Each structure stands twice: as structure tokens, then as C-alpha cells.
């Protein structure tokens, strides 16, 4: 069919995509040309590569393996709070990493709740630093995502099949082999690939719980080469490896995963006639209870630990909080300025390459872009002065894939339903944006802005590379307080960060939903 005329032009979206492409590819190009390839990979670099792959594989395997019984329980049981629990499975996405880590330390750390019990029993306390700590934190963040992905597959099994199976007298075991396993077999590789790709570029977790020659990820090694040795050649070389590994994993993840849904529909429960036995019920209850405990205890811990110190927070924390709010605001504005025109152009079904550009954030690492931007800025200006703008831009690019997933389907609907009417009324260009598109997309804009603000608020990545003692965001300040063993202040600041991140999300999301209800 002939290319349909649209009320909006494709150019602004193409310009936005061009900007993203220039930043990401420009940073890559600089990193590649700056890489000190002659030296080759030292034993420490190889160890970092090995550790990165190992922890990502373990994290992915554990997250998905644990997600299966949880998703099964959620799909076949109805209980009070089930809908709420499924909604909360989306929360770790917004949770600042450093907050979760402090919460986990309070539960699983050397002086944490579990260790206290163990010591009472005459056993040694838990040792959380190192590989198992990194994996534990990654499972904390990715178990909910894995549950959502697998639950999606479960719910895709038509209810009629369960009815038919029940009529044929199938037990739980038969249903598993007949219906559930075939559906899962298609979902599991995608879930594994996504979690693996996410864990490959993990920085804040490795920074706080890893470290040392035995537990350093590539991303952390880039930071160390940069920050401690100021060895730009080595940082760039590691960056090249990181791009290769993460890009490959990202491609595999995108290819195996058909659809990462943000949307609702997951809280539907199925009528099942099997699994009525006591053992099955107890197993499901155990899976759900353990998950709730695992996900909520660290949050409860950070609230309890942070409350006492909240009114005696040092001034540096408040200043950092102000800086973070500013960065989050800038990030959100940049994201909207990029994502909205791109989404409109993609929705108009023109310029297929834009979609690929939008996904680049998934396959790149913030520290690699950061290194590249540092190398670009360094000759002309003091990069440390530009720490905050660079952080805002990188955060926006990282949030872009998610924002596009939110905007594109909605924009497509608007163009499909109102495109012709708008054209026949000469409602085009900017007027179409103002009178129609922005108002129709209001809920999506609120949601995406909330996501970006929360992500940016909690981000501890590029800023750690660039910041000097005077300039810190709140997550970085929390990390510095931890490093100075001022745990009470760190926990209180983490609680503040948690409230700000969730508060920003809530405000934006609510702002998008209020007003027009139609």
C-alpha cells in the first residue's frame, strides 16, 4: 500500500534519533580509537571478563529457576493481596540500586538480621561480599522481572485447555507436561537472555558488594582504570570488550524475547481444577511467602534503619538530594524531547531504523558512553565540570527504550484513529501535537516521565566516574557515607532517596492520569 500521509512530519523524530546515534556511536568510536590494544589483555582484565560472565550466568539461572515456582503459584492461586503483589513486582525497576543494597546488608550482611540469629546459634555470620553477594543482589532485582515474563507465558495458555485437561482427568503432573512446560519452554530462553544482558552491565552492585581481583565486573574495571589509575587506554580497551559482550547479549535477548510487557493483564487468575492437594497448596504458599520475604524484608529494613537518622541528616545529603532532583528533572525533559518525536515518527511507520536506535540504550553500557564522552570533552573542557549534564543525557538515553515501548503503541493508536480526521481538518504539524497528540498521550507521558525521573534519581553510574568531592548526587553521597562507615547516615540518606524516587514516579504518573479521564 502506498505510504500514508500523516498529520505529523517525520523530521523531528529523525533529528532526535540522529542525536542519540551521534552520542552513542560517537562515544563508541572514541573509545575504540582510544583503546590501548597493543598491550593486550592482562590477567586482571581476563579475570574481570570471566567474573562478569560467571555472575551474569548464575544470576540469570537462579532468577529464572526461582521464578518458575513463584509464577506457577501466582497463576493458579487466588489470595488477598495477589493483585497488589503482582503490581509490586514492577517496583524493583524503580528502586535505586544503592538503597536495595543497604537494605540487603541490613538483612543479609555481617551485622544483619540473619547473621544475628546465626551468631546466637553459635554459627558464623554470613559473608555477603564477593560473588554470592553480587548474585544475591542481582536475583533480588531480576527475580521479579523473571516472574513477570514467565507469568506472561503462563497466562497465554488458553483457559479452555485447562478446562479440557480437567475433564480428561489430568493431574498436576500431566498438566505440567501437557500444557505448562511447552509454554514455558518458549519463554525461558528469553527471560534468561534478558536477565543475563542486564547483569552484564551491572555497576553499582559490583561496586558495593564486589570488588577485589576476584569479584570485579568489566563495568567496575572500567571505573577503576579510569578513577584510580587514570589509565584511559585500558579503560577504553575494557570498554570495547564490554560493548562487544553486552551488545551481543542484548541482540540475543531482543531476538529471543518477543515482548517485554509493562502493561496490565497479568493480574488475571485462571480457573484450575488441579493442585487442590495439601502438598501442592503448601508448596505454592511457601513459594509466595519466601518471595515476599526476600523482596520486602530489605525494604522494611531500610525504612526501620533509616528513620532514626532522618532528622539529623548532614547538609551534604540535602545538597546532594537537590542536585539529584535537578539531574532527574533535566533527564526527564531530555527524554521527553527525544522519545516523543521518535515515537511519533515510528508510529507513522516511517524510518524503520529509528526503532533500532531507540533500543541502543539496552545494548550499551552507561560507563562506556561515559568514558567516550570524557575522552571527547577532556581536550576542550574540564569534564568534571560537565558531570551533571553528562549524567542527565546518559540517563535519558538509558531510559529511551522503555519510554519508546510506552509511547509507540499509544501514538500508533492515535494516528490510526484520528489521523484522517486531523488531516481533513488541516490539523497538522505543531497544532496536531498541541491539540491532539500530547493530550491523547498524557497518561503515557506521565508514566514514562515518572519512570525516567525515578531511574535517574537512583542512578549510580556515570556520576561516580565524573564527580569530584564538591559534586555528588544523592546515590553517590549514600555510597560515600557507606565508604566512610557512617552507616546510620547512609541508611537515613538511602531512605530519603527511596522516598524521592518513588515520590517522583508517583507524582508524574498521577499527573498523567488526572485531568481528562477520556
Amino acid at each position, binding site marked *: 500500500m*502506498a505510504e500514508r*500521509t500523516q498529520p505529523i512530519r517525520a523530521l523531528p523524530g529523525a533529528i532526535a534519533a540522529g542525536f542519540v546515534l551521534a552520542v552513542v556511536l560517537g562515544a563508541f568510536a572514541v573509545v575504540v580509537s582510544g583503546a590501548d590494544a597493543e598491550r593486550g589483555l592482562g590477567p586482571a582484565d581476563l579475570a574481570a571478563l570471566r567474573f562478569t560472565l560467571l555472575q551474569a550466568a548464575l544470576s540469570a539461572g537462579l532468577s529464572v529457576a526461582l521464578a518458575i515456582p513463584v509464577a506457577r503459584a501466582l497463576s493458579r492461586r487466588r489470595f488477598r493481596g495477589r493483585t497488589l503483589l503482582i503490581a509490586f513486582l514492577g517496583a524493583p525497576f524503580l528502586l535505586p540500586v544503592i538503597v536495595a543494597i543497604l537494605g540487603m546488608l541490613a538483612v543479609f550482611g555481617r551485622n544483619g538480621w540473619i547473621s544475628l540469629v546465626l551468631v546466637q546459634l553459635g554459627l558464623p555470620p554470613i559473608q555477603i561480599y564477593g560473588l554470592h553477594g553480587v548474585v544475591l543482589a542481582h536475583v533480588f532485582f531480576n527475580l521479579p522481572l523473571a516472574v513477570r515474563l514467565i507469568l506472561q507465558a503462563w497466562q497465554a495458555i488458553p483457559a479452555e485447555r485447562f478446562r479440557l485437561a480437567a475433564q480428561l482427568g489430568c493431574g498436576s503432573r500431566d498438566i505440567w507436561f501437557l500444557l505448562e512446560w511447552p509454554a514455558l519452554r518458549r519463554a525461558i530462553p528469553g527471560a534468561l537472555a534478558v536477565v543475563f544482558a542486564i547483569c552484564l552491565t551491572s555497576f553499582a552492585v559490583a561496586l558495593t558488594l564486589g570488588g577485589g581481583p576476584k569479584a570485579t565486573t568489566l563495568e567496575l574495571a572500567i571505573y577503576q582504570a579510569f578513577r584510580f589509575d587514570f589509565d584511559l587506554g585500558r579503560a577504553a580497551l575494557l570498554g570495547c570488550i564490554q560493548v562487544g559482550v553486552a551488545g551481543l547479549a542484548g541482540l540475543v535477548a531482543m531476538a529471543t524475547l518477543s515482548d517485554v510487557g509493562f502493561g496490565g493483564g497479568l493480574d488475571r487468575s485462571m480457573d484450575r481444577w488441579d493442585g487442590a492437594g495439601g502438598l501442592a497448596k503448601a508448596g505454592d504458599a511457601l513459594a509466595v511467602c519466601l518471595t515476599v520475604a526476600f523482596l520486602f524484608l530489605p525494604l522494611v529494613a531500610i525504612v526501620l534503619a533509616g528513620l532514626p537518622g532522618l532528622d539529623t541528616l548532614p547538609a551534604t545529603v540535602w545538597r546532594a538530594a537537590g542536585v539529584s532532583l535537578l539531574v532527574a528533572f533535566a533527564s526527564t525533559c531530555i527524554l521527553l524531547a527525544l522519545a516523543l518525536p521518535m515515537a511519533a515518527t515510528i508510529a507513522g511507520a516511517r524510518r524503520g531504523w529509528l526503532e533500532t536506535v531507540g533500543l541502543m540504550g539496552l545494548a550499551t553500557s552507561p560507563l562506556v558512553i561515559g568514558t567516550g564522552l570524557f575522552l571527547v570533552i577532556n581536550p576542550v573542557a574540564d569534564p568534571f565540570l560537565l558531570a551533571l549534564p553528562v549524567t542527565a543525557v546518559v540517563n535519558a538515553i538509558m531510559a529511551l527504550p522503555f519510554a519508546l515501548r510506552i509511547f509507540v503503541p499509544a501514538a500508533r493508536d492515535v494516528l490510526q484513529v484520528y489521523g484522517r480526521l486531523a488531516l481533513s*481538518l488541516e490539523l497538522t504539524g505543531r497544532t496536531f501535537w498541541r*491539540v491532539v497528540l500530547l493530550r491523547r498521550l498524557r497518561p503515557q507521558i506521565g508514566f514514562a516521565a515518572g519512570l525516567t525521573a525515578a531511574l535517574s534519581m537512583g542512578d549510580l553510574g556515570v556520576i561516580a566516574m565524573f564527580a569530584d568531592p564538591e559534586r555528588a548526587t544523592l546515590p553517590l553521597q549514600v555510597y560515600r557515607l557507606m565508604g566512610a562507615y557512617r552507616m546510620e547516615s547512609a541508611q537515613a540518606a538511602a531512605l530519603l532517596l527511596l522516598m524521592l524516587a518513588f515520590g517522583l514516579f508517583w507524582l508524574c504518573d498521577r499527573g498523567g492520569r488526572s485531568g481528562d479521564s*477520556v
Partner: protein
Amino acid sequence: MAIRFENVRLQAGAFTLTADLEIASGARVAVMGPSGAGKSTLLAGLCGFLPLAVGRIVIAGQDITNAAPGARPVATLFQDGNLFPHLTAAQNVGLGLRPDLRLSGEEACAVQTALDRVGLAGLGDRKPAQLSGGQQSRVALARVLLQRRAVLALDEPFAALGPALKAEMLDLVGEVAQETKATVLMITHDPADARRLADETVLVAEGRANPPAPTGTLLDDPPAALQEYLGA
């Protein structure tokens, strides 16, 4: 204003529709034919949503073949989605005067008058969701009044309304067309609609839009393609 389709060929995927016909100025013409025969394709070509593969369209002596949809002297009522749900009835009508909705006092008065004219006095502040189906159609017709285009194209906009309400709307279309002196082109699958509004009918069948014929004669003695469709 007279509409001329000169050797027009429209191409939508593998589907082709040809049209070579003239519609007299001020005429009210029904467009009938089997489903999928190309009625909507013909209208899409007229409104500028589907570029012509061959030929040209002339309205009132002016070649509009390459004009943008909004620049053509055509006001359109679609099957659905004629109103923006986030705008009030008055704003939806106001779009007919100024797409950017920056209305002068005079223009705002004209909007009120148009709403009064279609029987919606006092309802200008309502959103479409707060109006009935018939009232929504009236809002769209009020906008057509203000657009003052030479041609009014209707793509079955009243298909979802009950028979009595639909008859009422068709009469209102007739009145609006008379006031704006518009030539009307209306797709319908209901012979009663055609008889009620249209003196002439264009039969679209077998990949061809035929020249208009008197509606009564056509329906009383339908050619084979139409007969099969009507089931008479």
C-alpha cells in the same frame, strides 16, 4: 460544485478501482455496492488519503489531484472517530474554523450558532463521552456547517444509529448541505438511506465506480451486481 473523476485509477495493495464519472454541482449522490467493492477507496481518493495511481480529480474546475487532504474543498464524516474525545463539543466544532483552536470572539459566536442550529444549545461544554450517539453526530454536522466546504463526503457515519435516529440525521445532512450549498457523496449499504437522501446513486462493483444513475430507477430495476448484493 461539480466533481469530475477523470480516468481515475486507485490502487490499494492488489486491489484496483477505476472511476471515470461526473457528479453535478449540488447533487446528492449515494455510493452503493457490495462490501469490499471499493466504496471507501473511492472516498479515500476524493479526500486525499490515497494518492491516485492514474488520472485526476477536478472539483469546480480546479484540479485537486495533488492537494493535501485539508486543502481540498471536502468536509468528511467518517464511520467513527469524528470527534476528539478529549475536546469539548464546542472545541470539536471550532476545529472547523481554526485547527489551532485560537478562536476570536466572533468565531466563538459562530460555534455557538452552529451548535444551536443542530439542536445542541447549551451542550457545548460537554465531552463526547457525555453525549449520546445521535448528539455526537450532530456535533460533527455542526462542524461541517462551519467548514463550508463545497463537497460533503460521508463514509457511513450513522451506521451505528437506530433507524429513526438515522433518518433524522439524514434529514439534518440534507439541511446542512442546502445551507452550505454542498455537493453530497454518501456511502451507504441501506437502500432506504439512498432513497431518503440521494436523487442519484453511484454503483461501485467489479472494480469500477459507475456514473451516477437516478436512485429510484437503479433500486427498482437493479443490475446483476447490485441485485446480488441487495438480495432482492
